[in-house]
């Protein structure tokens, strides 16, 4: 027998009221837990989205827009950068500072999922999270020489029911879904394992095939591409003419350079007989594939850079500054931009949600006061019996406070279970809509604050009934009928 047991028995005696009170506390706590878990996971997902590379080089403009487009596949590209600038990182003056440089081109989508044109090295030389290598759940990575091959992220494949061997036709800039703007078909050759990053929600096209699509042989920029939309439609029916026309208007000085590594090299070395996939794609881009594409006809959204900090730290550190001082592009450290974005916007939303959840718990705490306070009139007799048996005023006050604490902690425990169950139940929906993988078993250290927080709350809200117990007139309450 001890004070905890005595308090617990009092709770048991009023089980219905106690349960209702605990549940109301539990709902508030569940809300806090859900906010904490989702925030932590979203925060983690946001921050880890750009893991695997430390720099993004893209067109000058909004750094945030560049990161959103490149890392999260959200929004539109800032603008395009010349392919020749990419060469600076793979064979030019920036080579000593760079370990890996991956060119990417965004702006296309397929049935609502972003298509990202890149090179096979994206999945071979880059890693995600803590140096994890990309693995294929099905199929393989696309080959450089097979221009119209594509790889689907886990969630994109699942949602779109994509299978290896299936052909997809990405939609070009603007007018999503318009048949007139559909590109040549790409064949899915691999489906990635889930990574828990935005990569899960994208489809990756072979950059060379992407460049050879008819819609990319025109303007050097997004705006110009839009302006030339009517021209695309005209040329769609006369592919040969379109090619020569575009070259003569937008790309006046073709390059014959075939000696580049990475994308450019792969493209130049490509043998149409080696594609090994549907002839329809070849048919669509036939005229482009006959010759090598010059650099001027290629433009990129961004370059993902893994700096060579180990071998050339000084140059690697100076690289962003050098790029930013030049007029061509900007270099952005994605982690910094993401941190600013998260702390500035998402963090504030989370704070508001947390404040609301804390208010819910406080209201539920007041429920504890009401519950115990309402029971006090019938408990005066019980308290008087305890006093008559020798319990001091302090002892009966402590019993009431412990009862309040037990209700709050019990409700809190219930809330933690409800919160995690809620997260667990919602995790498939969250993953489906956001690509963020949330687990009901993601316990956060911050949840430990709930314990002292609830004890403090229970002490405050239990004080009023405890004082009532303290002031009980024993003789009077003993005489009164129970």
């Amino acid at each position: 027998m001890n004070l905890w047991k005595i308090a617990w028995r009092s709770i048991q005696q009023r089980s219905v009221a106690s349960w209702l009170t605990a549940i109301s506390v539990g709902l508030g706590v569940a809300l806090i837990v859900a906010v904490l878990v989702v925030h932590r996971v979203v925060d983690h997902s946001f921050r880890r989205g750009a893991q695997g590379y430390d720099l993004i080089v893209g067109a000058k403009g909004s750094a945030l827009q560049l990161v959103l487009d490149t890392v999260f596949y959200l929004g539109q590209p800032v603008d395009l950068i010349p392919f020749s600038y990419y060469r600076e990182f793979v064979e030019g003056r920036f080579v000593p500072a760079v370990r890996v440089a991956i060119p990417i081109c965004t702006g296309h989508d397929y049935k609502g999922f972003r298509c990202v044109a890149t090179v096979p090295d994206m999945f071979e030389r880059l890693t995600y999270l803590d140096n994890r290598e990309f693995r294929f759940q099905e199929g393989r990575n696309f080959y450089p020489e097979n221009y119209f091959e594509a790889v689907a992220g886990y969630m994109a494949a699942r949602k779109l029911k994509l299978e290896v061997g299936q052909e997809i036709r990405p939609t070009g800039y603007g007018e999503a879904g318009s048949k007139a703007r559909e590109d040549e078909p790409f064949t899915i050759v691999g489906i990635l394992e889930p990574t828990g990053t935005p990569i899960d929600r994208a489809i990756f096209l072979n950059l060379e095939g992407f460049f050879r699509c008819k819609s990319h042989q025109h303007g050097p920029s997004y705006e110009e591409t839009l302006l030339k939309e009517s021209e695309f439609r005209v040329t769609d029916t006369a592919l040969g003419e379109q090619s020569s026309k575009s070259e003569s208007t937008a790309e006046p000085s073709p390059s014959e350079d075939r000696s580049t590594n990475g994308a450019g090299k792969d493209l130049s070395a490509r043998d149409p007989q080696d594609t090994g996939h549907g002839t329809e794609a070849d048919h669509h881009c036939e005229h482009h594939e006959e010759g090598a594409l010059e650099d001027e006809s290629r433009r990129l959204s961004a370059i993902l850079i893994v700096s060579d900090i180990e071998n050339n730290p000084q140059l690697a550190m100076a690289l962003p500054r050098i790029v930013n001082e030049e007029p061509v592009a900007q270099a952005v450290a994605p982690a910094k931009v993401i941190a600013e974005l998260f702390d500035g916007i998402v963090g504030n939303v989370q704070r508001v949600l947390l404040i609301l959840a804390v208010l819910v718990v406080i209201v539920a705490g007041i429920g504890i006061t009401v519950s115990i306070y309402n029971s006090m009139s019938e408990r005066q007799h019980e308290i008087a019996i305890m006093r008559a048996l020798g319990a001091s005023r302090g002892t009966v006050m402590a019993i009431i406070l412990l009862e309040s604490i037990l209700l709050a902690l019990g409700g809190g425990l219930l809330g933690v279970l409800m919160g995690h169950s809620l997260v667990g139940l919602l995790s498939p929906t969250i993953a489906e809509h956001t690509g963020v993988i949330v687990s009901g078993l993601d316990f956060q250290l911050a949840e430990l604050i709930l314990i002292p927080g609830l004890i403090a709350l229970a002490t405050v809200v239990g004080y009023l009934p405890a004082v009532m117990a303290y002031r009980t007139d024993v003789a009077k309450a003993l005489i009164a009928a129970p």
Partner: protein
Amino acid sequence: MLLVLEEVKKSFPLPDGSRLEILDIPFFALDAGEQVVLVGESGSGKTTLLHIISGISRPDSGSVRLDGWDITLLSEADCDRFRAKRIGYVFQTFNLLPGFTALENVLISMYFADGRPERARARQLLERVGLGHRLNHKPPMLSVGEQQRVALARALANRPQLILADEPTANVDVGNQQIIIDLLRETCREEGAALLLVTHSPEVARQFPRIERLEHLNRLGKREVQQTV
């Protein structure tokens, strides 16, 4: 002497601001192990007197000494501890804690006395009053006679020097009244505790070697009786 009351006065405030005098006892004493019955009219102050002896109520003046300790001089907290250890109280309405089992009702009394409940003694006491098979039953599951027997075991739990019993058979059926009285007297004798029992029942009173009428102890009661006559 175990218990000595001297010049004990008690009054209660009335709504009009005056005071209603209830007790004015010049002297009352009880020896260790003695068994005394106290009788008196309803409202004559018997329960108030028991409350004063147990320290639940404080007298307006006078002294109440138990085993040499004047409980009117003790602080409230000390008085609570003193009561828990030295006085057992059997109430008319049993006053068991409804959320606790018979065993726990006895243990809780021990816990309030010194924080060290003796489970074996609690069981032994309950077995002594014939409730060995009802240890884990809560009060609502017990008959009134059984409830009063639990109350008796609880009163004896801390080996008190004095048992105060306030009309312990008033709410018990006739068949159980004698059983309760016999148990009360026997167990008090076994435990060496003095017994001061309040009753309205002449049958119960007749069984005690010493019968005190409150009207005789109380100056106010005498006056009232004289006025009535």
